[in-house]
């Protein structure tokens, strides 16, 4: 599979179809990290294994990477959903991009998300590497199991939980920087004239930050769980993302990135949206 990947990328670079391949490279200790291959002989650096965590779509909106020229990008089935959202939000031009789909084995990358994964093979890739694993039907209960368990707590317990968790937030913004959909050139958290969100890593500042981060991704987050994986404080940001994803699915029958035809739900509206909570 890795060979097939390398050959494909070599061909793309040789033919001049793309100038750069955004993929995974070999790191020490069997780790992988994002790599940018611009010379065909460097395709040997590319790997595909169960430690290819990063959602590389995050690089598609970065000036340093855009400057490298037309790109081919490696995506897993979950990462691919980010491309759908990015395209709907006019951040990428799909016709200028070669998508190399990487089909996951049953275990995927062994992250919690892989357990609830329905579709391990990218669907809209130009080339797909690996065997097309079958789809595993999942119910909403499977998708939101972690959230469901969390919501069994009382509101006070939930608040207490976030107080302990967010007390560890150092405001490194790794959760934002790694997110393929946090592409704003100026994040509202960095706005300092006037300050909108306290920049201090205090509970006040960290609550405001996470409420903002999660909400700005409401109806947009594709559930790659990268934010949660990279948080050095081990804060389970996934619960916040899941709660908005569930709200989007329950209220608007919408799941970000899973349907190329579906229009985004934020920035849009229906006259029939529910309003029983409004007086």
């Amino acid at each position: 599979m890795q060979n097939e990947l390398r050959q494909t990328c070599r061909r793309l670079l040789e033919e001049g179809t793309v100038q750069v391949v955004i993929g995974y490279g070999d790191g020490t200790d069997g780790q992988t990290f994002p790599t940018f291959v611009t010379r065909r002989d460097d395709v040997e650096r590319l790997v595909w294994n169960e430690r290819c965590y990063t959602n590389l779509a995050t690089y598609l909106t970065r000036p340093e990477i855009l400057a490298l020229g037309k790109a081919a990008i490696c995506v897993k089935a979950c990462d691919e959903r980010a491309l759908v959202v990015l395209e709907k939000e006019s951040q990428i031009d799909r016709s200028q991009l070669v998508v190399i789909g990487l089909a996951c084995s049953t275990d995927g990358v062994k992250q919690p998300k892989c357990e609830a994964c329905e579709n391990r093979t990218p669907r809209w890739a130009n080339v797909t590497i690996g065997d097309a694993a079958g789809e595993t039907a999942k119910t909403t209960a499977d998708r939101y199991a972690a959230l469901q368990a969390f919501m069994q707590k009382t509101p006070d317990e939930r608040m207490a939980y976030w107080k302990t968790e967010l007390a560890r937030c150092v405001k490194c913004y790794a959760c934002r920087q790694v997110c393929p959909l946090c592409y704003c050139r100026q994040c509202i958290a960095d706005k300092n004239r006037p300050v909108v969100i306290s920049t201090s890593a205090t509970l006040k500042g960290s609550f405001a930050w996470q409420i903002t981060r999660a909400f700005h991704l409401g109806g947009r987050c594709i559930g790659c769980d990268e934010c949660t994986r990279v948080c050095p404080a081990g804060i389970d940001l996934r619960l916040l993302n899941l709660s908005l994803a569930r709200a989007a699915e329950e209220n608007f029958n919408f799941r970000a990135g899973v349907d190329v035809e579906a229009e985004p739900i934020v920035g849009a509206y229906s006259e029939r949206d529910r309003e029983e909570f409004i007086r």
Partner: protein
Amino acid sequence: MSETITRGALLQRVSVWIGGGKSVIGPRQVKPANGSGQEVPVQYGRVASAEELLLSGDTRPANSLKEFFFPRHEKLYGYQFKGRQIELTDTEQPSTEQIIVGGRPCDAAALPVLDHLFNWDYRDETFNRRRELTTIVTIACRSFDSHCFCTSVGSSPVDARGSDVLLLAVDAERYEVRFVTEKGRRLLNGATTTANENATEPAAPPKRFEMEQLKEFLAGGYERPEWKTTTLRCLGCGACAYTCPTCHCFDIVDEGNAAGGLRARNWDACQFGLFTLHASGHNPRHNQAERQRQRIHHKFQIYPDKFGETLCTGCGNCTRNCPVGLGVLSVVEAIAAAPRENQSQK
């Protein structure tokens, strides 16, 4: 002949300290209340009981010890508007005694390095106060991972610098005790016994780069293309700086409203785009490569030139915590090994 302490005797001491109102800080498992399957890191933190401490010498906490001396948010003073007057209120100086138990030698070694900065053109009162109030017991690392490189920056798993006491595990129940300072000796006074057994020195991580080669590159390679090629994947977050024991950049912020507020010192990180952004909109370091170059220069050239010390203890936190496995190690390893020719190539 050497001093030894049993695990039991150490834990007993810890319980006494906690009971006496002292703040005991050490590596412990951070436990979120829900079983989400997310990997839970080990972090240094204040413990409520001795049993929480992880003292095997195999832990690599995700954070560093600096936050117990230089907190991520520190109130400097408060202010209140009283008519046309402004009333200032001082912040209370720290007064709780802190005892760090089970620190890594590389985390402790960062503190004397930071002392230079916090006592340079200005003597930082709270930092120094906390240093005085703290006694540090470290445990020599019994294992290392692929991110550890203390030996490349002149340190080692048994480096006692910055520690008051260094423990070396003899077996699961006993430690050899190496007193480094009088303060350390006082801390464990009466808890140790003299025995005829020495711990075997633990294995040290292999050298990852030659400091001489790195310095050579830094001296002449300001415009080298490696800055860009090695750092392309950097996302520009603060995970490396905020978990680094030696990074110390901060920002002074005012937080308040029409009635009053506070002035605080918050951590800041050189990899953020906002870090050097001028009010005019101009940014002298306008991409990640330039920010990374600054970071490496600061750690391995500027700080050593100014204070005679490397601003890195090789702890590996920056790479371990980096979302994309970069950190300082990957960059310095690559540039130290870069071919010497084309020094002036753009």
